[in-house]
Each structure stands twice: as structure tokens, then as C-alpha cells.
């Protein structure tokens, strides 16, 4: 249920919005859209005094913007996890943790995707929030948890630098090998191509 008093509204702000907002600020990943939601909430609050709008209306609207701000930050973590996953897939991590790294990575990422889809579907949940519980967050919480775990256990894996270097060396070796192979192939087939070219020219 939207807060009934300004005290309840600011309790929600302090409990959820402030830590998340400070979090993205600390991580230096602050999107305009989050600021727009906060500005919108402030504007609604001001209307109690500037336009004498009823408390109930002001509180419901401000709460809705604050809640949207939190949900947006949760969603951004899914986007961040996707970005991290795509970066990790470019690295040969098959030998990390005796090959278990890749399996666990895929499993956790698939769980994030599945839970995020579920959470998004239930965003319009009309059940009432209580003082102690915000239903829209119930399904986003595990997603947020998994995104943080993903970053901790996979994106910041202590052996990742080693795997990255190994991947670079392997790619370089493949590149050098392909150049040498094409040079050898060119050398071996040189006479054939010269005679083929001569035959082609003789046609005209």
C-alpha cells in the first residue's frame, strides 16, 4: 500500500532508494532516468504545499516514482550482468576451476535471465505493499542477488587475468600459424595459379 504519511514515504526512501541511489553513485553508473524519477517524486511532494494537493494523492504519486527508481536500478544490474557475460564469453575460460567455471557461469546467467523475465512479468502486481514488504521487490531481490554474485564470482574471478592473457597468446599463435600456412600454401600453388592465369589470358 502506498505510504499514508510523509514519515512512511521517507522511511521507504531511506530503506531502499537511498542505498540504491548511493550505490550507483559510488559505482559511477548514474543514468539520467533515475534522476528524472527522483525529480518527479520531489515535484509531487512539493505540490502538497504549492497546489494544496491532497496528501493521499501526493504520497501515492511520489511513492510510485521512488519505487520505479529502485526497479530501474535492479534492471540495470541485469543489463550490467549481460555485458559482463558477453565480455567473459570472449575469453577462453574453459580451463578455469577444472572446467567448472564455464558450467557455473552459464547456469547462473541463465538463472538471472529466467528470474528477470519472471520479475518483469510480475511488475504490475497489484497486491498491496505493507510497511514491512514491497511486493514488487520480492522477485527482483533474487535477481539483484544473483547479479552481485555473478560479478563477484565470475567477472572478478582471481584467475581471469591469467585466462585473458592465455586467450590472447592462443589467438596470436592462431593468427601467426594462419599467416605461415597461407604463405606455404601460396608458395606451393604458385606455379598452378600462374599457369591458370596464363590459360585465362589466352582465352581472350
Amino acid at each position: 500500500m502506498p505510504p499514508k504519511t510523509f514519515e512512511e514515504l521517507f522511511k521507504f526512501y531511506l530503506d531502499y532508494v537511498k542505498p540504491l541511489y548511493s550505490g550507483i553513485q559510488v559505482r559511477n553508473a548514474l543514468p539520467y532516468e533515475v534522476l528524472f524519477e527522483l525529480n518527479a517524486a520531489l515535484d509531487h511532494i512539493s505540490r502538497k504545499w504549492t497546489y494544496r494537493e491532497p496528501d493521499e494523492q501526493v504520497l501515492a504519486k511520489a511513492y510510485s516514482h521512488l519505487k520505479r527508481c529502485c526497479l530501474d536500478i535492479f534492471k540495470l544490474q541485469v543489463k550490467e550482468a549481460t555485458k559482463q557475460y558477453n565480455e567473459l564469453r570472449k575469453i577462453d575460460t574453459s580451463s578455469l576451476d577444472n572446467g567448472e567455471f564455464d558450467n557455473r557461469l552459464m547456469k547462473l546467467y541463465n538463472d538471472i535471465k529466467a528470474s528477470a523475465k519472471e520479475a518483469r512479468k510480475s511488475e504490475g502486481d497489484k497486491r498491496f505493499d505493507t510497511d514491512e514488504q514491497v511486493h514488487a521487490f520480492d522477485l527482483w531481490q533474487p535477481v539483484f542477488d544473483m547479479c552481485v554474485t555473478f560479478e563477484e564470482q565470475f567477472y572478478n574471478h582471481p584467475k581471469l587475468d591469467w585466462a585473458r592473457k592465455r586467450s590472447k597468446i592462443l589467438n596470436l599463435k592462431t593468427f601467426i600459424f594462419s599467416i605461415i600456412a597461407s604463405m606455404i600454401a601460396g608458395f606451393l600453388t604458385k606455379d598452378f595459379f600462374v599457369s591458370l592465369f596464363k590459360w585465362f589470358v589466352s582465352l581472350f
Partner: protein
Amino acid sequence: MSNTLVTFEKNVERWTGRNVKELRRETIEETRKSLALKGILIRLFSEFPFIGRGNILRDKIVSHEDVEKELDKALR
């Protein structure tokens, strides 16, 4: 305190490496200044249409379906 809030606080601490009570206590301005002292200038960017309401964009109007598609793309 609800379980959701307790879990949430733990996750925020893991996510930021900062104590959640500290994050709550500090004013936004103090957090910004402490980052600036470390040489970090707050970077602002847009994540629309991944998040955000309204459909007025710089060069075109984005439908609800387009916004959903964008999210589906990220979740694929």
C-alpha cells in the same frame, strides 16, 4: 525488519563494498564530494529506453513494443 530488507542490505554492501548504514547516513553531496576527492567525477548517461518512462526521444517516438523488445534483447 523484513527479510527482504535484510537481504537487500547485504546485497547492497556486496555490490558497493560500502556499509549500508554509512550509505544512508552520508548526504548525496558528501558521497559525491568523497568520490571527487578520489578523482572520480560522476558520469551521467542515458539508459533509455531500457529504463525510464515517457516516449519522447531525440529523433523518434518509441512505442511500448520497442521498449519491450529492447529489454528482451538484453535478456536473450
